[in-house]
């Protein structure tokens, strides 16, 4: 315990010496040099997040083209936004994508993780193959799948023709483009869910499973009453994470469809980018971004609340 007393003497000036502490220490705490350590990070991280966040809020109440001086509008941007059919379409597309993508990610990720959670030959290879698309950039995915799903000579149509299915429009078809984006999102995103679920599965105590087996539980019973409840924190984490990812979809849309065909894949972030950097309605774009950010906040608070309730249930 000698070390703890050294620690105490190093870090805490004793009370009777407090009035003798130099001014620097009284102003900046016991280790004023610590400010030197944190300053670059503080300036960059806070300066490039909190400042822009407030700036963006002000911008959302202005009319600004990023070049000429802005004009104050108050809440007009938000009012216009609520009647804008293009924004409404963007919200709907984002929600459709999210509603399809998140449950499929969770179900697919869990299913694959259960399959991959066994000791057989080549299992490492299978896991690598499932995960590897996760490291591929959205740009590369977009270019690759534009090629694969090319309506004229893409290999996807060739494969479909083996099964007697006629040629599809894919990204050129406004009914299919958004679904295709979900599919590509799953291809690249499932690996992450699998890896997180595998880690969760490995944390389940072996005794629980053995106890279930002794009690005569079958596979489904073990899953339903032991594995699934134990994985709930992981599932909630993934639900939050994947929802935030889905609501912020942009890169893949930009590379594959640029919002088309017939505006069928304009998602919210694409709408924001288009307004701010293509049409130079920065104030309007900022307002749209704030609507989305507010939604994200509600989603994460809501789900985190669910998580807290869950842990209390388990703990108590």
């Amino acid at each position, binding site marked *: 315990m000698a070390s703890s007393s050294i620690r105490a003497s190093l870090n805490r000036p004793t009370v009777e010496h407090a009035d003798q502490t130099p001014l620097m220490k009284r102003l900046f705490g016991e280790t004023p040099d610590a400010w030197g350590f944190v300053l670059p990070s503080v300036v960059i991280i806070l300066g490039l997040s*909190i400042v822009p966040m407030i700036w963006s809020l002000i911008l959302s109440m202005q009319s600004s083209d990023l070049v000429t001086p802005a004009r104050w509008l108050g809440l007009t941007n938000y009012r216009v936004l609520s009647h804008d059919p293009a924004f409404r379409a963007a919200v709907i597309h984002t929600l459709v994508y999210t509603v399809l993508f998140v449950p499929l990610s969770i179900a697919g990720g869990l299913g694959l993780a259960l399959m991959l959670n066994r*000791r057989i030959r080549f299992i490492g290879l299978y896991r690598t193959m499932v995960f590897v698309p996760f*490291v591929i950039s959205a740009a590369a995915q977009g270019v690759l799948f534009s090629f694969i799903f090319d309506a004229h000579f893409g290999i996807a149509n060739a494969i479909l023709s083996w099964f007697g299915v006629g040629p599809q429009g894919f990204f050129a078809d406004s009914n299919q483009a958004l679904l295709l984006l979900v599919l590509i999102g799953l291809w690249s995103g499932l690996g992450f869910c699998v*890896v997180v679920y595998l880690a969760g599965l490995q944390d389940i105590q072996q005794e629980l499973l053995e106890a279930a087996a002794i009690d005569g539980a079958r596979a489904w019973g073990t899953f339903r009453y032991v594995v699934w409840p134990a994985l709930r924190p992981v599932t909630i984490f993934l639900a939050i994470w994947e929802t935030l990812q889905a609501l912020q979809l942009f890169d893949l849309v930009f590379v594959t469809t640029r919002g088309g065909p017939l505006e069928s894949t304009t998602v919210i972030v694409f709408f924001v980018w288009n307004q*701010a950097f293509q049409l130079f309605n*920065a104030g309007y774009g900022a307002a749209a971004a704030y609507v989305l950010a507010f939604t994200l906040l509600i989603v994460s608070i809501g789900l985190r609340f669910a998580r807290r309730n869950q842990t209390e249930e388990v703990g108590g």
Partner: protein
Amino acid sequence: MTMQLMGREPRRRFLPFSPWHLVLLPVSLIFALPLFWLALSSFMTNAQINRFPPTIIPNSLHLDGYRYVLNNALFPRWFLNSVIVSVVVVFGNLVFGSLAGYAFARMRFRGSKILLTLMLGTLVIPFQITMIPTFLLMKYLGVIDTLGALIVPSLVTPFAVFLLRQFFLSLPREIEEAAWMDGCSRLRTLWVIVLPLARPALGTVAVLTFLTTWNDLAWPLIAINNDHNYTLQLGLTTFQGQHRTQWAAVMAGNMITVLPVLIAFLAAQRTFIQSLTSSGVKG
């Protein structure tokens, strides 16, 4: 460690191998085949690619695409830009992340709690909210449309600071205290004693920072206009738009874009996956 979720071992074996291979092989092929097709088509000629139905296994492989990309386009330049940005950003995160992480872990100073909470809070600020003012800020700083605009905002991330802080907290304090007693400065203690012990955490930060920086598209798209300053991701996207008929070259360019992360991933797969799960689930 591994458990058999789906009950017991089959009593009789109908196959000389586990029946799970029959499911797992096709499933994992679905994930791998698009990348296989990417690699294969990058070695085909435009004539081979433009045939329909496509030749699945081409009878000859060519380097036309790579030759085109390396000679006629700005690809080598974009590659260099991506390397510069990624290396500087990774380095910045290691240096500034270590400094700040160490201060938050081991030093007491006015405002440390508030600062830490604020930094943690910035993790939830979505990119689309900050992107317009960040663009304006970089414009006022005079770095917009240069590589500086890509480097400065990512030079240190809250993720790096937190991950390193958590790791430093987990190290035993006694060794550092001995160093302080011997008159070693904080900075020297960090450099000589702490950082060598923190290699796994530094590795995690480096790997994940490299991945996100190398793969980023949205910010370069906003910040860069001059095609000499494109990163590979932005360059590839533009290149595809301009060369719609030259799929061989586009796929060769795509291979060049993907290969560095692919190699990094395959070389350090274990670290990689552990980084992701530890920063995701436990963080």
